[in-house]
């Protein structure tokens, strides 16, 4: 269905090709998972499938890409719209109309599908993706998972033979991600659609994949059955890593397969307990009482009490729209707060000027790029020192610690997601706040960058800072957090040590906990350390 024939892609001003001499074919009805680190060329490969590379992005493509027999050299993306459906990373940016129903019909209108057929396909697609009750809703009011499903539906109505998805679940909470993946697998199984999907959070998708394409980052491609490829890749989901250290063969890809093989491992671990995460007797870093945030009739945060102790890492979880961001902004003092008090060493950050508030509580927002506005990394650091009133060089020092080797002459927009996060974190840490709040910091980070982020967060906590991370990433939480707070409908529904909260939860349990249930093991590293 998709055929890459000796394909290389070079962007202007790049010293080496992003993709080098790739040849592979994807057969009809296959679900192919594309993995690789940041900058390894995943997006380039995906966009080459429907000709966006190079027709839209520029650059030079050598070789040939055939989709359903059509050469992308002679067919620009719009002429391939009836064969390939592409869903981008942020669905909201790709919406053309403003209501769900019109968005679903848009591609069909372009393809001149007869009105009667359009009407029927829209109804079918609404049912197929389970979004029928949203049909008249404005797109901007939908939750992330709903938007993603509408975006998939909007390309499906054109009945493409190939579906290309770039990080479809990276912004979604675990349950919404399950919904989207269920919809995708249904398309593969029932309709024979060929699916090519790139995903950083491999653990969510790998069990459904027929094939794995791994881009190590040097322009080459490893191609094969998932279990085979994952046996040797540097990045792998926890279930595979656990399989590696336990010596399971064949490598399990799903929790179910792993549990069936895990009997001996569970026996070997009986009597051993995971290392106690440090019990915090640190002083109170922040105390919030009765926090309420309302937007008109909507109660985003409904009377929350929260205590943060010095030196602990707290994960804030909950589905999209449960009030996590509103809570963080209200704690920092910059966001709206309808009622309640926050005390950081006796001072309410909302009652002082922003420059003082950030020295009490630092917040890294969901789009960290909003804080950056200068041309170079060095200039941003210098500005941060001035703004915080610290001696010159503090921010640059912090940055060197968080992301070593970042050239100060680089433009902040050219940084990778992980590097940009490190820069913004360094800017915020320049003011030396005792409490650091991070809103969805690991969106778009690959495994290596996440590991580095985990070390950074733990390092901060070791210096006595209280760190709160709002996230959907259960594996990150398992590796990093001392304590988990779960929110729903603006209220805290669970608050306790990580193991206690996540192990028995169907949505928030990490893979290792699911495999070794009921023993409270959370990460592969813990298990590896405990094994003789």
């Amino acid at each position, binding site marked *: 269905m998709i055929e890459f024939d000796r394909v290389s892609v070079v962007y202007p001003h790049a010293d080496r090709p992003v993709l080098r001499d790739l040849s592979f074919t994807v057969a009809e009805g296959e679900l192919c998972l594309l993995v690789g680190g940041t900058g390894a060329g995943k997006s380039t490969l995906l966009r080459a499938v429907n000709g966006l590379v190079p027709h839209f992005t520029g650059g030079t493509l050598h070789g040939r890409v055939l989709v359903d027999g059509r050469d992308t050299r002679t067919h620009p993306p719009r002429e391939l719209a009836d064969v390939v459906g592409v869903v981008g990373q942020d669905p909201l940016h*790709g919406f*053309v109309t403003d209501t769900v129903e019109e968005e679903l019909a848009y591609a069909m*209108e372009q393809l*001149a599908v007869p009105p009667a057929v359009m009407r029927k396909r829209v109804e079918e697609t609404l049912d197929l993706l389970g979004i029928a009750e949203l049909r008249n809703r404005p797109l901007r009011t939908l939750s992330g998972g709903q938007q993603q499903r509408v975006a998939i539906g909007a390309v499906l109505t054109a009945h493409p033979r190939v579906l290309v998805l770039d990080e479809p679940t990276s912004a979604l909470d675990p349950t919404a991600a399950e919904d989207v993946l269920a919809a995708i697998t249904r398309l593969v199984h029932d309709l024979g659609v060929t699916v090519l999907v790139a995903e950083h959070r491999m653990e969510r998708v790998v069990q459904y994949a027929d094939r794995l394409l791994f881009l190590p980052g040097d322009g080459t491609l490893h191609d094969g059955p998932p279990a085979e490829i994952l046996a040797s890749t540097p990045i792998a989901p926890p279930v595979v890593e656990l399989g590696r250290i336990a010596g399971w063969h064949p490598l399990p890809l799903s929790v179910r397969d792993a549990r069936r093989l895990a009997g001996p491992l569970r026996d070997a671990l009986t009597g051993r307990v995971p290392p106690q995460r440090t019990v915090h007797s640190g002083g109170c870093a922040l105390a919030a009482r009765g926090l309420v945030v309302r937007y008109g009739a909507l109660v985003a945060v409904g009377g929350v009490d929260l205590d943060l102790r010095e030196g602990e890492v707290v994960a804030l979880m909950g589905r999209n729209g449960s009030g996590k961001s509103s809570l963080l902004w209200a704690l920092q003092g910059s966001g709206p707060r309808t009622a309640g008090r926050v005390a950081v060493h006796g001072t309410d950050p909302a009652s002082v000027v922003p420059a003082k508030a950030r020295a009490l509580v630092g917040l890294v927002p969901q789009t960290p790029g*909003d804080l950056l506005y200068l041309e170079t990394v060095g200039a941003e650091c210098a500005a941060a020192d*001035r703004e915080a009133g610290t001696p010159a060089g503090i921010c640059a020092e912090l940055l060197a610690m968080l992301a070593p080797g970042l050239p100060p002459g680089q433009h902040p927009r050219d940084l990778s997601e992980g590097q940009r996060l490190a820069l913004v974190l360094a800017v915020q840490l320049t003011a030396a706040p005792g409490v650091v709040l991070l809103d969805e910091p690991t969106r778009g980070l690959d495994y290596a960058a996440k590991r580095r982020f985990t070390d950074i967060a733990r390092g901060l906590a070791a210096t006595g800072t209280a760190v709160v991370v709002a996230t959907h990433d259960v594996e990150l939480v398992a590796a990093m957090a001392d304590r988990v707070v779960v929110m729903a409908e603006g209220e805290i529904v669970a608050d306790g040590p990580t193991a206690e909260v996540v192990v028995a939860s169907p949505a928030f349990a990490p893979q290792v906990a699911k495999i070794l249930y009921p023993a409270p093991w959370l990460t592969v590293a813990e298990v590896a350390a405990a094994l003789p």
Partner: protein
Amino acid sequence: MPQLPRALHPGAWWLWALGLATAASRTTNPVILALIAAGAGFVVARRRSAAPWALAFRLYVILGALIVAGRLLFRVVFGGGGGQHILFALPEVPLPAVAAGIRLFGPVAAEELLSGVYDGLRLATMLVCLGAANALANPKRLLKAVPAALYEAGTAVVVALSVAPQLAESVLRVRRARRLRGGAGRGFGALRAIVLPVLADALDRSLALAAAMDSRGYARSGATPRRTRLVTGVLVVSGLLGVCVGVYGLLDGTTPRAIGLPVLAAGLALAAGGMLVGARRIARTRYRPDPWRPAEYAVAASGIGAGALLYLTSTVDPAALYPSLSPLAWPQLSLLPALAVLLAVAPAWVAPPPPVERLTVAIA
């Protein structure tokens, strides 16, 4: 038989509202104006949907009230003494000789005040009529009804319209984020800290949107032969150039007469020809286009009829439309304007009721 609930064609609502606004523009009679505004409000109350834009009507009414109040204030501040019936006198502020002819405060006459109210009321009523159209019809759906050859332009406008709220949202977000860095800096530096991230964000979004539209088949030419495309392009572009030259010729008295109307007409014909050829080549369909049925004719006719009736009145009985200020006289409501107002309110019954969300019905 009562009509089934459905959304009326937005074009019908706009024709109705423009007819009403035309009617309002023909008169300063406060009785007629108030009746027209009240009629428009009544139709909105009966036939608007629960959509967000339907709530905007209140804003137009408030804006109208502000206009009337502003006119009044203006008359009081800048001398309202031109009349027989002095209501009250304010101490006059003496101005230097340079400002001769301008008076600050002083005596205020009923005639001046009334003329201010009449004028303001006329503008306010026209505004309320347009507000009614905005509340009753989704302005974006109107754009969907443009001729096929203008489809691309229509889409561009729709996209531009949705960019505005996004931009506003982006500014709010960046400003909020700015406070996280201490919010320091004033003037140019602070402006730059907001504008640059917003622009970068807008650019990213437009690129993503363009890529999405391209990969979903926007501006697809399908099997159209190259020649047809070329002919269409040449026709439309040269036609529009002709229109520009023609308009210039018409408006500028010094150009020869031959460049005016004839060139304009030729340009229009060329452009229309190009659009017709283009419309034939465009392989595109519409999803659930708004139908134009008897109710649409009736609604459009009621608005246009109201406008026409007042137009008629202004030729046969102008005194009814412009109540006398000197001597002061009570405004009268004569037969023709009364009929016009009745006609204008007809859509409150003639138009089908708006559709109701199925979900809410199930709950209720």
